[in-house]
């Protein structure tokens, strides 16, 4: 299996076969053919498992970016009720690459914040391909502070290629907007549960991802730079993105191994887009469990655990001795 296109073809073949078997099973009712059908089914299952258990990092990048992958509004629709969107940063504008709002989660009032991508060209432009500008991050933190004021838990969903790199975004302080969110999220006095659902594109993702619990879907990615960006800087050749994807260690498994995330959430076989409802159901179960745990903590404990989580995270160095000081 060298590229993801082959995988999709393989998957479509499997689906075709399945349909054929279903048709057959309607017609033939004798014992022998039933057994034959069962054998075929078992074989399909094996092939399918084989294909998807051996995805390369680059293939996972393709899965994370799959145009049919469920986005934040899909999860809002399936896991939450009574969603009321909140627009605008009250400073400059309303950024459609981030959606925020009030909602109910199993009856409980909560706040939801997430990146929003789109599927058709017109919508993609409207959502700016899921790349927020400063006003998006400022809207997000404004709404999260409202959640803090009314003591409502926050759920964030991450799926962005990155913060928008453009003249207007720079003029309005893209860096400052992200930095401010990182600091403020670290001290919000309500539980924050983050799920990386698709692309975790660097600072543009992290700016709404400083959670008490950070989950990652099986085929999501999280990286300091896109594989293409990395390839064009390190190899001066964007077409070597496949190598870069491997070198960057950006899969859910890698992130878990480095203890940068808490849990990997299994996706339906073939990816979240093959069965968005099943994905939403299992996500929902996890979120309920996570929320119950965080709500059981007194607020001071929640905050100290959050600080300690990030304090311990990403410590990779040799000869750690704080006592070593010498006169310069």
């Amino acid at each position, binding site marked *: 299996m060298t590229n993801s296109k082959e995988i999709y073809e393989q998957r479509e073949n499997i689906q075709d076969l399945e349909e054929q078997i279903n048709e057959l099973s309607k017609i033939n009712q004798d014992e022998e053919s039933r057994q034959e059908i069962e054998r075929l089914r078992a074989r399909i299952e094996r092939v399918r498992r084989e294909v998807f258990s051996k995805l390369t990092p680059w293939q996972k990048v393709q899965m994370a970016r799959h145009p049919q992958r469920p986005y934040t509004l899909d999860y809002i629709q399936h896991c939450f009720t009574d969603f009321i969107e909140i627009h605008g940063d009250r400073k400059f504008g309303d950024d459609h690459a981030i959606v925020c709002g009030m909602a109910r989660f199993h009856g409980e009032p909560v706040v939801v914040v997430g990146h929003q991508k789109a599927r058709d060209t017109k919508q993609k432009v409207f959502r700016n391909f899921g790349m927020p500008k400063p006003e998006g991050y400022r809207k997000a933190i404004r709404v999260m502070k409202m959640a803090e004021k009314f003591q409502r838990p926050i759920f964030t969903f991450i799926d962005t290629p990155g*913060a928008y*790199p*453009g*003249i207007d*975004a*720079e*003029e*309005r*302080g*893209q*860096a*400052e907007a*992200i*930095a*401010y969110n*990182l*600091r*403020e999220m*670290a*001290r919000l006095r309500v539980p924050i549960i983050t799920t990386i659902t698709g692309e*975790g594109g*660097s*600072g543009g993702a*992290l*700016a709404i991802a*400083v959670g008490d619990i950070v989950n990652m879907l099986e085929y999501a990615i*999280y*990286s*300091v*730079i896109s594989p293409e*960006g*990395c390839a064009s800087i*390190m*190899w001066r050749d964007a077409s070597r993105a496949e190598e870069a994807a491997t*070198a*960057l*260690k*950006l899969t859910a498994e*890698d*992130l878990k191994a*480095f203890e*940068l995330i808490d849990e990997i959430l299994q996706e339906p076989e073939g990816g979240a887009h093959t069965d968005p409802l099943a994905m939403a159901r299992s996500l929902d179960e996890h979120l309920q469990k996570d929320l119950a745990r965080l709500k059981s903590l007194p607020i001071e404990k929640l905050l100290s655990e*959050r*600080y300690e989580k*990030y*304090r311990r*995270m*990403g*410590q*990779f*160095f*040799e*000869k*750690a001795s*704080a006592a*070593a*000081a*010498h*006169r*310069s």
Partner: protein
Amino acid sequence: MAAWFKKEKTPIASVEQKRVKTEGLWTKCESCKQIIWKKDLAANFNVCPKCNFHFKMDARERLKMLFDDGIFFELDSDLATSDPLHFKDIKAYRDRLRDATKATGLKDAIISGDGALGGRPALIQAMEYRFIGGSMGAVVGEKIVRAIEISLQRRCPLIIISVSGGARMMEGAISLMQLARISAGLARLDDARVPFISVLTDPTTGGVTASFAMLGDLNVAEPGALIGFAGPRVIDQTIRQKLPEGFQRSEFLLEHGMLDGIVSRKEMRQFLIRSLDFMMAA
């Protein structure tokens, strides 16, 4: 006749000798293209005496320039990355690290200094651009987090002089998480009302700008420094538009309300002392 010929030989040799000597004594200003005597440049804090262009400056020189009597204790100088990703592009990360250490004498891209500023205890950290573009990985993150914790404990001000291309690609998402770690530390410093001043120098971009460099009680920059989130090349490639004149320079950021001030290198020490006078009890 013979004496006349003999005389000719010696000046030729001495001219060559002289040329060797002059080399390295002079430098050309990148901005005004004038030739400057290097001693003049050094005496002027690496700022062009003719056009005020700010040359890059080594981290250690910066700390000496800022601390009282140029004296400070260096903290955590032995921390080195463990290369968690075993990253390799056209060159192995290990080799890049070794070369950077050879060139700078440092183990990573920041020096933590503990000393006094205007008679007041202070921590100052300076980033080193010659160490893989001043990029931020686990070691830079850890050294800053530790400095924040010392500042908190002693209630002494923290100053960070940034010069960085951003998060260090060769440590992947581990570099990215340093943004969150440092920002969480700065939230505590902010809650405790301990001053943090960010000084941005040329260039400061990416994850460094998008975390601590923009979170100071004061964010000030040296003149003409390139400061931004996305680098100009990335923006150019993405939108394929000509970038405006002076885009992402200190003066541009000041004009757009993103900086509290522009402070020239010569005035930096006094600026910091006076700011701390305002923020802290005498």
